[in-house]
């Protein structure tokens, strides 16, 4: 399942078409809880992510300085993490919540990114487009670009996102979606407000 994510500034509202026949609309959320690992001297973070598209799974990405280790687990993993309070220190939670639209083989998700905390801090908008009929990014990148250009105009990328560039010929997995989301979430965490994608 091919996927691309764009980050759009908050000032430009996107007028998305109302759901009409051909569209099916439902809710979708992605949440990320980030932990800092206190066990070792080097700075390691563990990110625990949930995606409403895969309700039975919990994704976790361990980021050491040199490499990242992704894990896909059952929902009991959450309980396990809760038990590791002494080792993992909770840092920040961020989530992207919004609507999900289905048009034939495409799945479009728009989420507004907020940091739940003292007052919902709004960070931005994330747009995710998924083409469910193909699993190799290389075969359908052009097609997806065309689709996106249909409503975003000249704002689209000409090259695939950086995460996918090395994986264009590999089978796409749900963990790849999560990795892309994590990149964007980290960018949102660093920024405070408006940011445009280069």
């Amino acid at each position, binding site marked *: 399942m091919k996927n691309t994510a764009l980050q759009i500034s908050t000032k430009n509202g996107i007028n998305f078409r109302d759901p009409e026949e051909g569209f099916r609309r439902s809710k979708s959320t992605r949440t990320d809880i980030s932990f800092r690992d206190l066990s070792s001297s080097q700075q390691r973070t563990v990110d625990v992510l949930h995606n409403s598209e895969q309700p*039975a799974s919990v994704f976790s990405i361990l980021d050491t300085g040199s490499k990242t280790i992704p894990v896909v687990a059952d929902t009991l993993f959450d309980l396990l993490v809760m038990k590791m309070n002494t080792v993992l220190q909770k840092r920040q939670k961020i989530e992207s919540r919004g609507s999900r639209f289905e048009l034939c083989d495409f799945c479009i998700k728009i989420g507004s990114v907020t940091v739940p905390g003292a007052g919902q801090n709004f960070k931005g908008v994330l747009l995710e487009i998924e083409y469910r009929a193909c699993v190799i990014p290389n075969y359908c990148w052009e097609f997806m670009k065309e689709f996106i250009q249909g409503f975003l105009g000249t704002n689209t990328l000409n090259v695939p996102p950086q995460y996918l560039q090395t994986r264009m010929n590999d089978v796409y997995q749900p963990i790849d979606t999560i990795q892309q989301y994590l990149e964007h979430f980290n960018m949102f965490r660093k920024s405070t407000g408006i940011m445009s994608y280069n």
Partner: protein
Amino acid sequence: MAHSMNVNVSVETPAESIIQEINYDGQEIYQPPLSMSENLTRLAQKIDFSKPIIDEVKSEPNDGEKIEESIQETPLNNASVNLPFEAIAAKIRNAATEICVLVDVLNIAREKNYMVLDPVPQEPPETKPMAHIYSRKKALFQAGSMLTSAAERLRTTQSETNRSRSNADFHIELLRLRQNWRLKKVSNSIIGDLSYRTAGSKFPQTGMFEVTKADDDDVTNTNGNVSPAQSSTVTPNPQQSALRVTIPTELQGVAYIMVLCQKDDERLFNTSINLLSSPAAPSNPDMHWQQKLEAAQNVLFCKELFNQLAKEAVQLQAPIPHMVIGNQITATVLPNIQLVIGLCHSSGNEITKQSNNSNLTNKTTPQKSNHDHVLEHSLHQLLREVHHKNTHHPFPHPSSGPLGPSTKRYLAGPNAADRYELLSLTKNSTLLEQIIEQAQHFFMRIRAEQVLDTIAKQIKDPIIISHWNSLNSPTQSSVRVTIISHGFDFMCRTSLLVHVLQKSFRCICKDGKIMNLSYECEELRNLILCQIYHHQMVGIQNIAKSMGWQLLASTPYLGIGNVEPLGNASSSILASPLGDRLIAIRCEPQGKVHVSIAHSPRKDFFSGQLVKERKWENLGGPFKEVRWDKMEGKNFLNKMELLMASLTSSS
């Protein structure tokens, strides 16, 4: 003085153990005292078997002088007399001597050279005949009285065991009952359980039965010739057993699930089934308890099955709703075909008949031959599967997670399954749905068989062969249909694979086309007919290629000519190797073929006013139809081959 009166006396036990060594700090280490066996060993070692024994016999007639001498000698032998085993050793030595002497004597007497054993003649004793007789009589009388008393005793014990044999029998029978069924003792009575609880059933009806001793008054009713003098040695009827089981009334008798598939012609609702005209086995009160219990268990199983099916029939929403009337469930399998599932229970001697309130008479009594045993067995298997799933939870059994989800659900998390996959995991089909699917597939399979057999019988020209796959499931089978012409099977062979599903057919042709047909047999028949005439066309083209004829044109869907009721006609035009003959073939899906021939240089060319030159004769003449029924040849392709052969000119 006081202190001089008190004298300190210290009492010490004599040291029993030998001091082995004394440490430098004054501590004494004792040798541990000998244990019993060590003591015995020490004493036994002091026995000396080689020493001469003290002769006690000779010492008796001795005078006092010798007694003094012997007393003086005894201190010398004190050491030996004090030995505990000396007397034993002396006696053993004496015995050895005596036995040696005896052995020597016997050996010598056996050789009979030096010594012979001769019996001492005895005087014959006086015989007093009368006393002899009297003594014998008395002895016999005593023996006789002893024997009669013993016989009396045996008889009394036998009569006792006869009476109490039922008791022993009862226990043996109870043991056998316990080996087969679950029993427990509740206060005075023995209660058993014949339900499927421990196998995973969750049916609320209990299957309790009670075990009692068979009463004695039932037993003693055999023959009145028994004299009261004899003790009541009545043996119980070998077919009766010593114990009796009491089964609850609702489980008595014999039951089974009747499954019928019938065509529903005009009526909208079925009337009730008239149950078995003859019960499967008349319930005999004297039936052995094993059979009774098994029958009761079967009744309970059938009740649970029917209960489950009835519940599902009411809950499920089907396009044509299922009907539950009394002991009968009616479900529509395919249009005009109904599946009737009924619970037939004959309890005791009476047969429960449902009231027959219809006008149609003969159609309501189901024949036993209609009952589908395969589907009944499937129903039993499905319920057993449900029971099995209730008890056997799939691995893994985590201590920290829920127990019960299937293996696919366990793996859904780590495999990042999306919501569609999870939804498909939650779809469980109920018993009724499953049996309806099986019945639907059964009908589809029969229809496919019928269609193929009818076509194969009707159409003889290309031979239609159907190979059914021997591996199939209750809901899917497949058949490979091959169309060949006799004699030309190397030339042209059309095959297609037909998957028979629950409510549809799926045909996969050799060229990769997949066609999904509905449950109507006509569609399958039409498809096969179209494949047949397509086969003819392909055959013609192959033959033409092999004979050197050229294919000029070929159209699978011809737009000219009569409109076909089924499919489209197809046509081909062939030219001979030299080009002087043309054959045009039009093949219709109904099986008719029209073959026409033309000569390329016209035979009937006459140059007239308009067309003057000779060369125009090469445009080709009109096509003349061949009377195909008069044509020689076994089948269509053979006829074509012969036609082509006859039209090929060698010049």
